[in-house]
């Protein structure tokens, strides 16, 4: 009978990713490019919000989009049609993007051409919340049809975001979505989060969101 030995390991599983993510942030700082990680459920309106944001900001900042949402070029083509460079990461059905995947995308772009990059993360409220993409700030969308209970069901993602965009507020009248209950639930998890109520369809609230993103970008790129 062979003797069982105990080996100390003491390693964090996500440690490798954290190192890559920190390196990526340093690179972005040096190149004066801000990067936002945008997360949401499928259908919350990530691509449409990005298009609205481009319309509101492209005269002020040089923008680019890293599409990771699904393994197709549909979203990238929509963004390019708005006159902004977009690259598609082939995530191959992966549930989230990690810092190494984003780094590959960033390396394929000439950062001199960009003040602001937006990552459209995979449509999912669970996995992207756990994995640092190397972005400077994290934002998420919660759309009105998804319901005001999402902060109770998916608490982690609300704790890692700097901004929450409540999208599709044009649906509020038709729904029983309770905005003040949702706000209280989110602020319980993350008292520092900025909340923007918008409708990408009507354009309501887009300006306040775009202003926040502009301020954060300018503060980072100096």
């Amino acid at each position, binding site marked *: 009978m062979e003797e*069982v030995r105990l*080996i100390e*390991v003491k390693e964090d599983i996500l440690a490798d990713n954290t190192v890559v993510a920190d390196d990526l942030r340093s690179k972005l700082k040096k190149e004066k490019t801000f990067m936002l990680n945008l997360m949401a459920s499928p259908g919350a309106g990530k691509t449409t919000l990005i298009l609205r944001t481009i319309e509101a900001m492209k005269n002020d900042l040089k923008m680019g989009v890293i599409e990771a949402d699904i393994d197709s070029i549909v979203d990238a083509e929509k963004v390019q049609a708005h006159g902004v460079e977009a690259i598609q990461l082939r995530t191959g059905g992966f549930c989230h993007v990690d810092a190494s995947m984003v780094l590959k995308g960033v390396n394929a772009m000439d950062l001199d051409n960009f003040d602001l990059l937006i990552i459209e993360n995979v449509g999912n409220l669970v996995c992207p919340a756990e994995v640092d993409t190397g972005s400077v700030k994290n934002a998420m969308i919660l759309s009105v049809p998804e319901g005001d209970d999402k902060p109770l069901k998916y608490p982690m993602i609300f704790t890692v975001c700097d901004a929450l965009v409540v999208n599709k507020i044009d649906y509020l009248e038709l729904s029983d979505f309770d905005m003040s209950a949702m706000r209280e639930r989110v602020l319980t998890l993350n008292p520092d989060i900025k909340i923007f109520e918008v409708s990408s369809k009507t354009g309501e609230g887009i300006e306040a969101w775009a202003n926040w993103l502009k301020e954060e970008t300018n503060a980072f790129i100096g």
Partner: protein
Amino acid sequence: MHELPVTESILNICVKHAEANNAKKIVAIELKVGEMSDLEDEWMQKYFDYLAKDSIAEGAKLKIERTPVVVQCNLCAHTFNVDIKKREKLLCPECEGTCTLISGKEYHIKNMEVV
């Protein structure tokens, strides 16, 4: 939902340490997983069994210990545990200050048993 990448990292790290220690087989792996993780023990083991097939970690048992969500008050530095599933507030019970997460998101490999 992302059991596959997480268990793959566990496997890679453990095999690396096992080889460095001239181990022939990994019998068990002791992990600390934060309460904020949505991964279920049973599924992590299933994914691990699938990935570890034909490696020196085949058949290894994952011993998973859950670590509580711990936050610290930004004002008075009071540290306390939060039961996130019971929707407890992330506000300091002493002074109602806002708090920063100290632990509860980690996937940490403590040690492993090898022969």
